[in-house]
Protein backbone atom coordinates (compact mmCIF):
# COMPACT_ATOMS: atom_id res chain seq x y z
CA UNK A 1 0.00 0.00 0.00
CA UNK A 2 1.24 3.45 -0.83
CA UNK A 3 2.01 5.52 2.23
CA UNK A 4 0.16 8.73 2.78
CA UNK A 5 2.97 10.96 1.55
CA UNK A 6 2.96 9.31 -1.87
CA UNK A 7 -0.74 9.38 -2.52
CA UNK A 8 -1.05 13.07 -1.70
CA UNK A 9 1.58 13.88 -4.32
CA UNK A 10 -0.68 14.02 -7.34
CA UNK A 11 1.61 15.03 -10.21
CA UNK A 12 3.77 11.92 -10.75
CA UNK A 13 0.96 9.45 -9.96
CA UNK A 14 -1.29 11.28 -12.40
CA UNK A 15 0.93 10.30 -15.29
CA UNK A 16 1.44 6.78 -14.04
CA UNK A 17 -2.26 5.94 -13.64
CA UNK A 18 -2.90 6.93 -17.22
CA UNK A 19 -0.67 4.19 -18.61
CA UNK A 20 -1.98 1.95 -15.88
CA UNK A 21 -5.54 2.10 -17.16
CA UNK A 22 -4.40 1.60 -20.74
CA UNK A 23 -2.46 -1.47 -19.73
CA UNK A 24 -5.54 -2.84 -17.97
CA UNK A 25 -7.53 -2.61 -21.19
CA UNK A 26 -4.68 -4.18 -23.17
CA UNK A 27 -4.29 -7.07 -20.74
CA UNK A 28 -8.01 -7.75 -20.86
CA UNK A 29 -7.95 -7.63 -24.66
CA UNK A 30 -5.20 -10.25 -24.68
CA UNK A 31 -7.29 -12.47 -22.44
CA UNK A 32 -10.65 -12.29 -24.20
CA UNK A 33 -9.68 -11.15 -27.70
CA UNK A 34 -12.41 -9.78 -29.94
CA UNK A 35 -14.98 -10.10 -27.20
CA UNK A 36 -13.73 -6.78 -25.88
CA UNK A 37 -15.89 -4.54 -28.01
CA UNK A 38 -15.15 -1.05 -26.89
CA UNK A 39 -13.39 0.89 -24.21
CA UNK A 40 -13.59 4.47 -23.04
CA UNK A 41 -10.98 6.12 -20.89
CA UNK A 42 -10.95 9.41 -19.06
CA UNK A 43 -7.28 9.88 -18.17
CA UNK A 44 -6.54 9.71 -14.45
CA UNK A 45 -10.17 9.24 -13.68
CA UNK A 46 -11.96 6.12 -14.80
CA UNK A 47 -12.22 3.48 -17.49
CA UNK A 48 -15.23 1.81 -19.07
CA UNK A 49 -15.05 -1.47 -20.99
CA UNK A 50 -17.82 -3.11 -23.01
CA UNK A 51 -17.57 -6.81 -23.67
CA UNK A 52 -19.87 -9.17 -25.55
CA UNK A 53 -22.50 -10.90 -23.44
CA UNK A 54 -21.11 -14.33 -24.27
CA UNK A 55 -17.83 -13.33 -22.65
CA UNK A 56 -19.43 -11.83 -19.55
CA UNK A 57 -18.16 -14.42 -17.10
CA UNK A 58 -14.85 -14.84 -18.90
CA UNK A 59 -14.16 -11.11 -18.63
CA UNK A 60 -14.85 -11.26 -14.91
CA UNK A 61 -12.42 -14.14 -14.55
CA UNK A 62 -9.79 -12.37 -16.62
CA UNK A 63 -10.12 -9.21 -14.57
CA UNK A 64 -9.89 -11.18 -11.37
CA UNK A 65 -6.68 -12.80 -12.55
CA UNK A 66 -5.37 -9.33 -13.29
CA UNK A 67 -5.80 -8.44 -9.64
CA UNK A 68 -9.34 -7.06 -9.58
CA UNK A 69 -10.45 -9.25 -6.72
CA UNK A 70 -12.67 -6.71 -4.97
CA UNK A 71 -16.28 -6.92 -6.10
CA UNK A 72 -17.99 -3.54 -5.96
CA UNK A 73 -21.43 -3.90 -7.51
CA UNK A 74 -23.42 -5.42 -10.36
CA UNK A 75 -26.56 -4.00 -11.91
CA UNK A 76 -28.11 -3.09 -15.24
CA UNK A 77 -29.22 -0.05 -17.20
CA UNK A 78 -32.35 0.33 -19.29
CA UNK A 79 -31.46 2.82 -22.02
CA UNK A 80 -35.03 3.31 -23.30
CA UNK A 81 -36.01 6.98 -23.07
CA UNK A 82 -38.77 7.09 -20.50
CA UNK A 83 -42.21 7.23 -22.15
CA UNK A 84 -43.51 9.00 -19.05
CA UNK A 85 -41.10 11.91 -19.16
CA UNK A 86 -40.12 12.91 -15.66
CA UNK A 87 -43.57 12.16 -14.29
CA UNK A 88 -44.55 15.79 -14.03
CA UNK A 89 -47.20 15.81 -16.73
CA UNK A 90 -50.89 15.53 -16.11
CA UNK A 91 -51.36 11.78 -15.58
CA UNK A 92 -54.80 11.77 -17.21
CA UNK A 93 -53.42 13.14 -20.50
CA UNK A 94 -52.59 10.74 -23.29
CA UNK A 95 -48.86 9.99 -23.43
CA UNK A 96 -47.22 11.72 -26.35
CA UNK A 97 -45.93 8.68 -28.21
CA UNK A 98 -44.51 10.60 -31.12
CA UNK A 99 -42.30 12.56 -28.76
CA UNK A 100 -41.10 9.44 -27.01
CA UNK A 101 -40.24 7.77 -30.29
CA UNK A 102 -38.42 10.79 -31.58
CA UNK A 103 -36.01 10.52 -28.66
CA UNK A 104 -33.01 8.54 -29.67
CA UNK A 105 -31.73 5.68 -27.59
CA UNK A 106 -28.05 6.23 -26.86
CA UNK A 107 -26.01 3.81 -24.84
CA UNK A 108 -23.61 6.04 -22.98
CA UNK A 109 -19.85 6.07 -23.08
CA UNK A 110 -19.07 2.70 -24.60
CA UNK A 111 -21.97 2.53 -27.02
CA UNK A 112 -23.89 -0.64 -27.72
CA UNK A 113 -26.93 -1.83 -29.56
CA UNK A 114 -29.38 -3.20 -27.04
CA UNK A 115 -31.88 -1.63 -24.73
CA UNK A 116 -30.54 -3.39 -21.64
CA UNK A 117 -26.94 -3.37 -20.64
CA UNK A 118 -25.18 -5.08 -17.78
CA UNK A 119 -23.19 -2.82 -15.52
CA UNK A 120 -20.60 -4.00 -13.02
CA UNK A 121 -17.63 -2.60 -11.23
CA UNK A 122 -14.61 -4.33 -9.76
CA UNK A 123 -11.62 -2.80 -8.01
CA UNK A 124 -7.95 -3.65 -7.71
CA UNK A 125 -7.05 -2.80 -4.14
CA UNK A 126 -3.31 -3.10 -4.73
CA UNK A 127 -3.10 -0.76 -7.70
CA UNK A 128 -5.90 1.52 -6.44
CA UNK A 129 -7.90 1.38 -9.64
CA UNK A 130 -11.43 0.37 -10.61
CA UNK A 131 -13.03 -0.75 -13.85
CA UNK A 132 -16.63 -0.38 -14.97
CA UNK A 133 -17.65 -3.29 -17.15
CA UNK A 134 -20.65 -3.32 -19.48
CA UNK A 135 -22.25 -5.87 -21.76
CA UNK A 136 -25.20 -5.82 -24.13
CA UNK A 137 -28.06 -8.07 -23.07
CA UNK A 138 -29.72 -9.66 -26.12
CA UNK A 139 -33.36 -10.71 -26.54
CA UNK A 140 -32.95 -13.92 -24.56
CA UNK A 141 -32.45 -11.61 -21.54
CA UNK A 142 -30.07 -14.08 -19.94
CA UNK A 143 -26.40 -13.64 -19.11
CA UNK A 144 -24.01 -15.89 -17.24
CA UNK A 145 -23.94 -15.59 -13.48
CA UNK A 146 -20.83 -14.15 -11.86
CA UNK A 147 -21.16 -16.17 -8.65
CA UNK A 148 -18.29 -18.58 -9.49
CA UNK A 149 -16.03 -15.57 -10.02
CA UNK A 150 -17.25 -13.23 -7.29
CA UNK A 151 -19.40 -14.84 -4.62
CA UNK A 152 -20.77 -11.43 -3.67
CA UNK A 153 -22.58 -11.16 -7.00
CA UNK A 154 -25.31 -13.42 -5.63
CA UNK A 155 -27.55 -10.76 -4.10
CA UNK A 156 -26.77 -8.21 -6.77
CA UNK A 157 -27.96 -10.62 -9.45
CA UNK A 158 -31.11 -11.36 -7.49
CA UNK A 159 -31.80 -7.65 -7.30
CA UNK A 160 -31.10 -7.13 -11.01
CA UNK A 161 -33.37 -10.01 -11.90
CA UNK A 162 -36.16 -8.57 -9.80
CA UNK A 163 -35.80 -5.01 -11.00
CA UNK A 164 -34.93 -5.50 -14.69
CA UNK A 165 -36.05 -9.04 -15.50
CA UNK A 166 -32.61 -10.18 -16.57
CA UNK A 167 -31.94 -13.87 -15.96
CA UNK A 168 -28.64 -15.29 -14.77
CA UNK A 169 -27.61 -18.71 -16.03
CA UNK A 170 -26.12 -20.70 -13.18
CA UNK A 171 -27.59 -18.65 -10.34
CA UNK A 172 -28.86 -21.05 -7.66
CA UNK A 173 -31.76 -19.03 -6.35
CA UNK A 174 -33.25 -16.02 -8.14
CA UNK A 175 -35.94 -15.29 -5.58
CA UNK A 176 -37.27 -11.76 -5.15
CA UNK A 177 -35.55 -9.76 -2.44
CA UNK A 178 -37.91 -6.84 -2.01
CA UNK A 179 -41.20 -7.46 -3.74
CA UNK A 180 -43.81 -10.15 -3.12
CA UNK A 181 -43.10 -13.35 -5.02
CA UNK A 182 -46.14 -12.95 -7.29
CA UNK A 183 -45.37 -9.36 -8.27
CA UNK A 184 -45.77 -8.76 -11.98
CA UNK A 185 -43.50 -6.46 -13.95
CA UNK A 186 -39.99 -5.17 -13.46
CA UNK A 187 -40.00 -1.85 -11.62
CA UNK A 188 -36.69 -0.42 -12.78
CA UNK A 189 -37.54 -0.73 -16.46
CA UNK A 190 -38.24 2.64 -18.00
CA UNK A 191 -41.64 1.58 -19.31
CA UNK A 192 -42.80 0.61 -15.82
CA UNK A 193 -44.74 3.64 -14.58
CA UNK A 194 -44.00 5.16 -11.21
CA UNK A 195 -47.50 4.70 -9.89
CA UNK A 196 -47.27 7.38 -7.21
CA UNK A 197 -46.96 9.91 -10.02
CA UNK A 198 -49.82 8.33 -11.98
CA UNK A 199 -52.53 8.57 -9.36
CA UNK A 200 -51.88 12.16 -8.32
CA UNK A 201 -50.28 15.05 -10.20
CA UNK A 202 -46.89 16.03 -8.91
CA UNK A 203 -47.63 19.00 -6.62
CA UNK A 204 -44.42 20.73 -7.62
CA UNK A 205 -45.73 21.39 -11.11
CA UNK A 206 -49.03 23.00 -10.10
CA UNK A 207 -47.82 26.44 -9.09
CA UNK A 208 -44.40 27.04 -10.48
CA UNK A 209 -43.02 30.42 -9.68
CA UNK A 210 -40.86 31.90 -12.40
CA UNK A 211 -37.24 31.58 -11.42
CA UNK A 212 -35.44 34.87 -10.80
CA UNK A 213 -33.34 35.52 -13.86
CA UNK A 214 -29.71 36.37 -13.76
CA UNK A 215 -27.73 38.11 -16.42
CA UNK A 216 -26.33 35.65 -18.89
CA UNK A 217 -28.23 32.71 -17.45
CA UNK A 218 -30.18 31.55 -20.45
CA UNK A 219 -31.62 28.50 -18.80
CA UNK A 220 -33.38 30.57 -16.22
CA UNK A 221 -34.87 32.81 -18.88
CA UNK A 222 -36.13 30.01 -21.07
CA UNK A 223 -38.31 28.54 -18.34
Amino acid sequence: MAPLSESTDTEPTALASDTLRESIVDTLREAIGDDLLESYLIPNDDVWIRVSASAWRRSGEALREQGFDYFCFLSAIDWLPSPFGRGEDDPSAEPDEAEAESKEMTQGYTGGATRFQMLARVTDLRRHVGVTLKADVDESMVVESWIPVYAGANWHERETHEMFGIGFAGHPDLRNMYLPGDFEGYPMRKDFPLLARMVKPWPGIVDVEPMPTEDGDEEAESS
Partner: protein
Amino acid sequence: MTMLSERQQLSYIASQAADARLNVELETEGMTLNIGPQHPATHGTLRIIARLDGEQVVWAEPSAGYMHRGYEKLTEVRTFPQVTTLINRIDWLGSFANEVPFILAAEKLMEIEAPPRAQHIRTILFELSRIANVGLFLGDLGVQMGAITPVFLAFRDREYVLNLIEGATGGRFHPNFDRIGGLKDDLPQGWIDETRQVMKKLRGFCDEIEDLLFGNEIFQSRTRGIGVIPADVARQYGLSGANLRASGVDWDLRRDQSLPMAWDKVDFKVWTHPDGDSWARCWVRLQEVRESTKIVDQLLDTMPAGPVMAKVPRIIKVPEGEAWVSTENPLGEMGYYVVSKGDLGPFRVKIRSASFNNISITPWLLKGVYVPDIITILASLYFILGDIDR
Protein backbone atom coordinates in the same frame (compact mmCIF):
# COMPACT_ATOMS: atom_id res chain seq x y z
CA MET B 1 -22.93 -44.68 47.80
CA THR B 2 -26.50 -44.02 48.82
CA MET B 3 -29.08 -46.67 48.34
CA LEU B 4 -32.11 -45.78 46.28
CA SER B 5 -35.51 -47.07 47.15
CA GLU B 6 -37.26 -49.22 44.58
CA ARG B 7 -39.56 -46.38 43.72
CA GLN B 8 -36.67 -43.95 43.21
CA GLN B 9 -34.93 -46.46 41.00
CA LEU B 10 -37.98 -46.86 38.81
CA SER B 11 -38.43 -43.13 38.47
CA TYR B 12 -34.74 -42.77 37.56
CA ILE B 13 -35.01 -45.41 34.87
CA ALA B 14 -38.16 -43.78 33.51
CA SER B 15 -36.50 -40.37 33.29
CA GLN B 16 -33.47 -41.88 31.55
CA ALA B 17 -35.73 -43.50 29.01
CA ALA B 18 -37.53 -40.22 28.41
CA ASP B 19 -34.22 -38.44 27.87
CA ALA B 20 -33.12 -41.08 25.40
CA ARG B 21 -36.35 -40.69 23.45
CA LEU B 22 -35.91 -36.93 23.41
CA ASN B 23 -32.36 -37.21 22.14
CA VAL B 24 -33.41 -39.45 19.31
CA GLU B 25 -36.11 -36.95 18.36
CA LEU B 26 -33.69 -34.03 18.41
CA GLU B 27 -31.27 -35.82 16.18
CA THR B 28 -33.79 -36.44 13.48
CA GLU B 29 -35.70 -33.19 13.61
CA GLY B 30 -34.17 -29.78 12.95
CA MET B 31 -35.82 -26.58 13.91
CA THR B 32 -36.36 -23.34 12.08
CA LEU B 33 -35.74 -20.24 14.12
CA ASN B 34 -37.07 -16.94 12.97
CA ILE B 35 -35.33 -13.82 14.23
CA GLY B 36 -37.09 -10.57 13.47
CA PRO B 37 -38.33 -8.65 11.50
CA GLN B 38 -38.65 -6.77 14.78
CA HIS B 39 -35.68 -7.59 16.94
CA PRO B 40 -33.28 -5.40 18.89
CA ALA B 41 -30.36 -6.85 16.96
CA THR B 42 -31.67 -5.91 13.55
CA HIS B 43 -31.41 -2.06 13.47
CA GLY B 44 -34.65 -1.84 11.59
CA THR B 45 -36.45 -4.75 10.09
CA LEU B 46 -34.18 -7.50 8.91
CA ARG B 47 -35.53 -10.98 9.29
CA ILE B 48 -33.20 -13.92 9.68
CA ILE B 49 -34.42 -17.42 9.03
CA ALA B 50 -32.10 -19.96 10.55
CA ARG B 51 -32.35 -23.73 10.29
CA LEU B 52 -30.95 -25.23 13.47
CA ASP B 53 -29.59 -28.58 14.46
CA GLY B 54 -29.56 -28.38 18.23
CA GLU B 55 -27.76 -25.15 18.96
CA GLN B 56 -25.92 -25.01 15.66
CA VAL B 57 -27.00 -23.21 12.53
CA VAL B 58 -27.19 -25.48 9.52
CA TRP B 59 -28.38 -22.83 7.12
CA ALA B 60 -29.31 -19.19 7.58
CA GLU B 61 -30.69 -16.63 5.24
CA PRO B 62 -31.42 -12.98 5.96
CA SER B 63 -34.59 -11.74 4.37
CA ALA B 64 -34.36 -8.06 3.58
CA GLY B 65 -36.88 -5.88 1.80
CA TYR B 66 -39.17 -4.75 4.61
CA MET B 67 -37.98 -1.21 4.09
CA HIS B 68 -37.46 -0.99 0.36
CA ARG B 69 -38.30 2.52 -0.79
CA GLY B 70 -37.18 2.35 -4.39
CA TYR B 71 -34.78 5.28 -4.34
CA GLU B 72 -33.16 4.30 -7.61
CA LYS B 73 -36.51 4.64 -9.37
CA LEU B 74 -37.47 7.80 -7.51
CA THR B 75 -34.26 9.60 -8.48
CA GLU B 76 -35.30 9.30 -12.12
CA VAL B 77 -38.19 11.71 -11.58
CA ARG B 78 -36.26 14.20 -9.44
CA THR B 79 -33.92 17.00 -10.40
CA PHE B 80 -30.31 16.75 -9.27
CA PRO B 81 -30.67 19.05 -6.23
CA GLN B 82 -33.82 17.22 -5.13
CA VAL B 83 -32.06 13.87 -4.99
CA THR B 84 -30.10 14.73 -1.83
CA THR B 85 -33.35 14.79 0.16
CA LEU B 86 -33.94 11.16 -0.76
CA ILE B 87 -30.46 9.80 -0.34
CA ASN B 88 -30.20 11.38 3.10
CA ARG B 89 -32.41 8.56 4.28
CA ILE B 90 -30.28 5.66 3.12
CA ASP B 91 -28.01 5.43 6.13
CA TRP B 92 -30.00 7.51 8.57
CA LEU B 93 -27.39 7.58 11.33
CA GLY B 94 -24.79 9.25 9.15
CA SER B 95 -26.95 11.19 6.74
CA PHE B 96 -24.53 13.87 5.64
CA ALA B 97 -22.06 11.25 4.46
CA ASN B 98 -24.69 9.91 2.04
CA GLU B 99 -25.01 13.22 0.24
CA VAL B 100 -21.33 13.71 -0.44
CA PRO B 101 -20.58 11.05 -3.07
CA PHE B 102 -23.66 11.94 -5.09
CA ILE B 103 -22.84 15.62 -5.07
CA LEU B 104 -19.24 14.83 -6.01
CA ALA B 105 -20.46 12.70 -8.92
CA ALA B 106 -22.67 15.52 -10.17
CA GLU B 107 -19.83 18.01 -9.79
CA LYS B 108 -17.53 15.67 -11.68
CA LEU B 109 -19.94 15.60 -14.61
CA MET B 110 -20.35 19.37 -14.52
CA GLU B 111 -16.58 19.80 -14.19
CA ILE B 112 -16.85 22.17 -11.28
CA GLU B 113 -15.23 21.93 -7.87
CA ALA B 114 -16.31 23.27 -4.53
CA PRO B 115 -14.16 26.06 -3.04
CA PRO B 116 -11.51 24.95 -0.51
CA ARG B 117 -13.48 26.14 2.49
CA ALA B 118 -16.52 24.16 1.38
CA GLN B 119 -14.36 21.06 0.90
CA HIS B 120 -13.02 21.51 4.41
CA ILE B 121 -16.44 21.90 6.01
CA ARG B 122 -17.73 18.98 3.99
CA THR B 123 -14.99 16.78 5.32
CA ILE B 124 -15.60 17.91 8.90
CA LEU B 125 -19.32 17.23 8.67
CA PHE B 126 -18.55 13.91 7.00
CA GLU B 127 -16.34 12.88 9.90
CA LEU B 128 -18.90 14.14 12.42
CA SER B 129 -21.51 11.86 10.85
CA ARG B 130 -19.05 9.02 11.16
CA ILE B 131 -18.58 9.76 14.85
CA ALA B 132 -22.34 9.99 15.44
CA ASN B 133 -22.94 6.78 13.51
CA VAL B 134 -20.12 4.58 14.76
CA GLY B 135 -20.35 6.02 18.27
CA LEU B 136 -23.86 4.71 18.51
CA PHE B 137 -22.66 1.38 17.16
CA LEU B 138 -20.20 1.10 20.03
CA GLY B 139 -22.95 1.65 22.54
CA ASP B 140 -25.39 -0.62 20.81
CA LEU B 141 -22.84 -3.38 20.77
CA GLY B 142 -23.15 -3.64 24.53
CA VAL B 143 -26.93 -3.97 24.48
CA GLN B 144 -26.77 -6.85 22.07
CA MET B 145 -24.41 -8.73 24.31
CA GLY B 146 -26.29 -8.00 27.49
CA ALA B 147 -24.54 -4.89 28.82
CA ILE B 148 -26.90 -1.98 29.16
CA THR B 149 -24.61 0.86 30.32
CA PRO B 150 -22.63 1.61 27.13
CA VAL B 151 -25.74 2.52 25.18
CA PHE B 152 -26.61 5.29 27.62
CA LEU B 153 -23.13 6.69 27.31
CA ALA B 154 -23.36 6.48 23.54
CA PHE B 155 -26.69 8.27 23.37
CA ARG B 156 -25.45 10.94 25.76
CA ASP B 157 -22.32 11.68 23.76
CA ARG B 158 -23.93 11.34 20.36
CA GLU B 159 -26.22 14.16 21.39
CA TYR B 160 -23.24 16.54 21.48
CA VAL B 161 -22.34 15.59 17.92
CA LEU B 162 -25.93 15.88 16.73
CA ASN B 163 -26.10 19.33 18.31
CA LEU B 164 -23.05 20.32 16.30
CA ILE B 165 -24.55 18.99 13.10
CA GLU B 166 -27.79 20.78 13.90
CA GLY B 167 -25.90 23.97 14.67
CA ALA B 168 -24.18 23.96 11.31
CA THR B 169 -26.89 22.55 9.06
CA GLY B 170 -30.22 23.01 10.83
CA GLY B 171 -31.07 19.34 10.76
CA ARG B 172 -30.19 16.79 13.37
CA PHE B 173 -30.69 13.68 11.30
CA HIS B 174 -31.24 14.80 7.74
CA PRO B 175 -29.08 17.86 7.13
CA ASN B 176 -29.63 18.14 3.35
CA PHE B 177 -26.87 20.69 3.50
CA ASP B 178 -24.66 19.73 0.59
CA ARG B 179 -25.21 21.56 -2.67
CA ILE B 180 -23.77 21.08 -6.12
CA GLY B 181 -20.86 23.49 -6.09
CA GLY B 182 -20.48 23.85 -2.34
CA LEU B 183 -22.57 24.14 0.78
CA LYS B 184 -25.82 25.84 1.64
CA ASP B 185 -24.27 28.04 4.29
CA ASP B 186 -21.14 28.90 6.18
CA LEU B 187 -20.53 27.76 9.74
CA PRO B 188 -22.20 29.72 12.56
CA GLN B 189 -20.17 31.77 15.00
CA GLY B 190 -18.53 29.88 17.83
CA TRP B 191 -19.05 26.56 16.15
CA ILE B 192 -15.37 25.79 15.74
CA ASP B 193 -14.58 26.27 19.44
CA GLU B 194 -17.54 24.18 20.46
CA THR B 195 -16.49 21.42 18.09
CA ARG B 196 -13.05 21.30 19.68
CA GLN B 197 -14.67 20.84 23.11
CA VAL B 198 -16.91 18.06 21.83
CA MET B 199 -14.03 16.22 20.18
CA LYS B 200 -12.28 16.17 23.54
CA LYS B 201 -15.42 14.72 25.13
CA LEU B 202 -15.69 12.12 22.39
CA ARG B 203 -12.16 10.93 22.97
CA GLY B 204 -13.12 10.50 26.62
CA PHE B 205 -16.13 8.50 25.49
CA CYS B 206 -13.88 6.19 23.46
CA ASP B 207 -11.67 5.56 26.47
CA GLU B 208 -14.73 4.87 28.58
CA ILE B 209 -16.11 2.37 26.07
CA GLU B 210 -12.75 0.69 25.72
CA ASP B 211 -12.63 0.28 29.48
CA LEU B 212 -16.21 -0.82 29.95
CA LEU B 213 -16.72 -3.01 26.94
CA PHE B 214 -13.50 -4.01 25.27
CA GLY B 215 -11.85 -4.75 28.59
CA ASN B 216 -14.80 -6.86 29.67
CA GLU B 217 -14.11 -10.57 29.90
CA ILE B 218 -17.61 -11.58 28.81
CA PHE B 219 -17.45 -9.32 25.79
CA GLN B 220 -14.08 -10.72 24.82
CA SER B 221 -15.13 -14.33 25.13
CA ARG B 222 -18.24 -13.65 23.08
CA THR B 223 -16.44 -11.94 20.22
CA ARG B 224 -12.95 -13.39 19.95
CA GLY B 225 -12.71 -16.03 17.25
CA ILE B 226 -16.41 -15.68 16.39
CA GLY B 227 -17.37 -15.17 12.74
CA VAL B 228 -13.94 -15.14 11.15
CA ILE B 229 -13.82 -13.72 7.61
CA PRO B 230 -10.59 -14.36 5.67
CA ALA B 231 -9.30 -11.50 3.55
CA ASP B 232 -9.93 -13.11 0.15
CA VAL B 233 -13.54 -13.95 1.06
CA ALA B 234 -14.07 -10.40 2.28
CA ARG B 235 -12.85 -9.00 -1.03
CA GLN B 236 -14.95 -11.42 -3.07
CA TYR B 237 -18.11 -10.37 -1.28
CA GLY B 238 -17.18 -6.71 -1.58
CA LEU B 239 -17.08 -6.09 2.15
CA SER B 240 -15.95 -2.60 2.89
CA GLY B 241 -15.14 -0.22 5.68
CA ALA B 242 -14.13 -1.61 9.04
CA ASN B 243 -15.31 -5.09 8.06
CA LEU B 244 -12.70 -5.24 5.32
CA ARG B 245 -9.95 -3.66 7.39
CA ALA B 246 -10.62 -6.04 10.27
CA SER B 247 -9.76 -8.87 7.88
CA GLY B 248 -6.33 -7.37 7.39
CA VAL B 249 -6.94 -5.54 4.11
CA ASP B 250 -5.36 -2.11 4.22
CA TRP B 251 -7.86 -0.19 2.13
CA ASP B 252 -9.43 3.13 2.95
CA LEU B 253 -11.02 5.27 0.27
CA ARG B 254 -10.23 8.43 2.21
CA ARG B 255 -6.53 7.75 1.67
CA ASP B 256 -6.44 5.58 -1.45
CA GLN B 257 -8.20 7.76 -3.99
CA SER B 258 -8.02 11.42 -4.82
CA LEU B 259 -11.25 13.32 -4.33
CA PRO B 260 -11.89 17.04 -3.98
CA MET B 261 -12.14 16.63 -0.22
CA ALA B 262 -9.79 17.61 2.58
CA TRP B 263 -8.60 14.18 3.71
CA ASP B 264 -5.30 14.55 1.88
CA LYS B 265 -4.54 17.60 4.02
CA VAL B 266 -4.59 15.74 7.31
CA ASP B 267 -2.51 13.03 8.86
CA PHE B 268 -4.38 9.98 10.07
CA LYS B 269 -3.80 6.31 10.53
CA VAL B 270 -5.84 3.60 8.84
CA TRP B 271 -6.30 0.87 11.42
CA THR B 272 -6.34 -2.74 10.39
CA HIS B 273 -6.50 -5.97 12.35
CA PRO B 274 -5.27 -9.36 11.17
CA ASP B 275 -7.84 -11.56 12.94
CA GLY B 276 -11.01 -10.99 10.93
CA ASP B 277 -13.28 -11.98 13.81
CA SER B 278 -16.07 -10.05 15.52
CA TRP B 279 -13.64 -8.62 18.04
CA ALA B 280 -11.45 -7.20 15.30
CA ARG B 281 -14.40 -5.53 13.57
CA CYS B 282 -15.51 -3.85 16.79
CA TRP B 283 -11.98 -2.83 17.72
CA VAL B 284 -11.25 -1.28 14.33
CA ARG B 285 -14.43 0.78 14.60
CA LEU B 286 -13.43 2.05 18.02
CA GLN B 287 -10.06 3.18 16.66
CA GLU B 288 -11.79 4.82 13.72
CA VAL B 289 -13.89 7.04 15.95
CA ARG B 290 -10.68 8.15 17.65
CA GLU B 291 -9.04 8.87 14.31
CA SER B 292 -12.08 10.81 13.17
CA THR B 293 -11.91 13.11 16.18
CA LYS B 294 -8.26 13.77 15.33
CA ILE B 295 -9.11 14.46 11.69
CA VAL B 296 -11.76 16.98 12.77
CA ASP B 297 -9.30 18.68 15.11
CA GLN B 298 -6.67 19.04 12.40
CA LEU B 299 -9.19 20.37 9.91
CA LEU B 300 -10.47 22.93 12.38
CA ASP B 301 -6.92 24.22 12.80
CA THR B 302 -6.33 24.61 9.06
CA MET B 303 -9.70 26.00 8.00
CA PRO B 304 -9.18 28.22 4.94
CA ALA B 305 -11.13 31.42 4.43
CA GLY B 306 -13.25 32.17 1.40
CA PRO B 307 -16.65 31.45 -0.05
CA VAL B 308 -18.47 28.17 0.50
CA MET B 309 -20.23 28.11 -2.83
CA ALA B 310 -18.84 28.06 -6.36
CA LYS B 311 -20.61 29.87 -9.15
CA VAL B 312 -23.23 27.55 -10.52
CA PRO B 313 -26.26 28.34 -12.69
CA ARG B 314 -29.56 28.70 -10.92
CA ILE B 315 -31.10 25.87 -12.85
CA ILE B 316 -28.69 22.98 -12.75
CA LYS B 317 -28.40 20.93 -15.89
CA VAL B 318 -25.78 18.23 -15.73
CA PRO B 319 -23.99 17.51 -19.02
CA GLU B 320 -24.33 14.12 -20.65
CA GLY B 321 -22.02 11.50 -19.24
CA GLU B 322 -21.46 8.82 -16.66
CA ALA B 323 -19.63 9.11 -13.38
CA TRP B 324 -18.82 6.85 -10.48
CA VAL B 325 -17.84 8.33 -7.13
CA SER B 326 -17.58 6.44 -3.87
CA THR B 327 -16.43 7.50 -0.44
CA GLU B 328 -15.52 5.79 2.79
CA ASN B 329 -18.79 6.16 4.66
CA PRO B 330 -19.38 5.15 8.28
CA LEU B 331 -20.66 1.77 7.13
CA GLY B 332 -18.18 1.23 4.32
CA GLU B 333 -17.87 2.06 0.65
CA MET B 334 -20.85 4.01 -0.55
CA GLY B 335 -20.96 5.02 -4.17
CA TYR B 336 -23.26 6.35 -6.85
CA TYR B 337 -23.09 5.48 -10.51
CA VAL B 338 -24.78 8.48 -12.10
CA VAL B 339 -25.87 8.52 -15.73
CA SER B 340 -26.95 11.90 -17.04
CA LYS B 341 -28.50 12.68 -20.40
CA GLY B 342 -27.99 16.41 -20.14
CA ASP B 343 -31.33 16.81 -18.42
CA LEU B 344 -32.48 18.43 -15.18
CA GLY B 345 -32.52 15.08 -13.48
CA PRO B 346 -30.40 11.94 -13.62
CA PHE B 347 -31.24 9.26 -16.17
CA ARG B 348 -30.17 6.44 -13.91
CA VAL B 349 -28.58 6.29 -10.49
CA LYS B 350 -27.16 3.03 -9.21
CA ILE B 351 -26.72 3.26 -5.46
CA ARG B 352 -23.97 1.03 -4.16
CA SER B 353 -24.52 0.90 -0.43
CA ALA B 354 -22.13 -0.69 2.00
CA SER B 355 -24.55 -2.74 4.09
CA PHE B 356 -25.99 -4.56 1.09
CA ASN B 357 -22.62 -6.17 0.38
CA ASN B 358 -21.73 -6.50 4.06
CA ILE B 359 -24.87 -8.46 4.84
CA SER B 360 -24.77 -10.59 1.69
CA ILE B 361 -21.95 -12.54 3.32
CA THR B 362 -24.15 -13.77 6.20
CA PRO B 363 -25.44 -17.00 4.55
CA TRP B 364 -21.80 -18.02 4.20
CA LEU B 365 -20.72 -16.71 7.57
CA LEU B 366 -23.54 -18.03 9.75
CA LYS B 367 -23.14 -21.63 8.64
CA GLY B 368 -22.13 -23.74 11.64
CA VAL B 369 -22.20 -21.05 14.32
CA TYR B 370 -24.17 -21.27 17.57
CA VAL B 371 -27.40 -19.37 18.09
CA PRO B 372 -26.08 -16.66 20.45
CA ASP B 373 -23.26 -16.01 17.99
CA ILE B 374 -25.77 -15.01 15.31
CA ILE B 375 -26.44 -11.85 17.28
CA THR B 376 -22.75 -11.20 17.90
CA ILE B 377 -21.86 -11.61 14.24
CA LEU B 378 -24.69 -9.43 12.98
CA ALA B 379 -23.86 -6.78 15.55
CA SER B 380 -20.20 -6.76 14.57
CA LEU B 381 -20.92 -6.64 10.83
CA TYR B 382 -22.95 -3.52 11.61
CA PHE B 383 -25.63 -2.73 9.13
CA ILE B 384 -28.47 -0.25 8.84
CA LEU B 385 -31.60 -1.43 7.17
CA GLY B 386 -32.06 1.67 5.07
CA ASP B 387 -28.62 0.98 3.70
CA ILE B 388 -29.52 -2.58 2.67
CA ASP B 389 -32.93 -1.94 1.16
CA ARG B 390 -32.48 1.59 -0.15
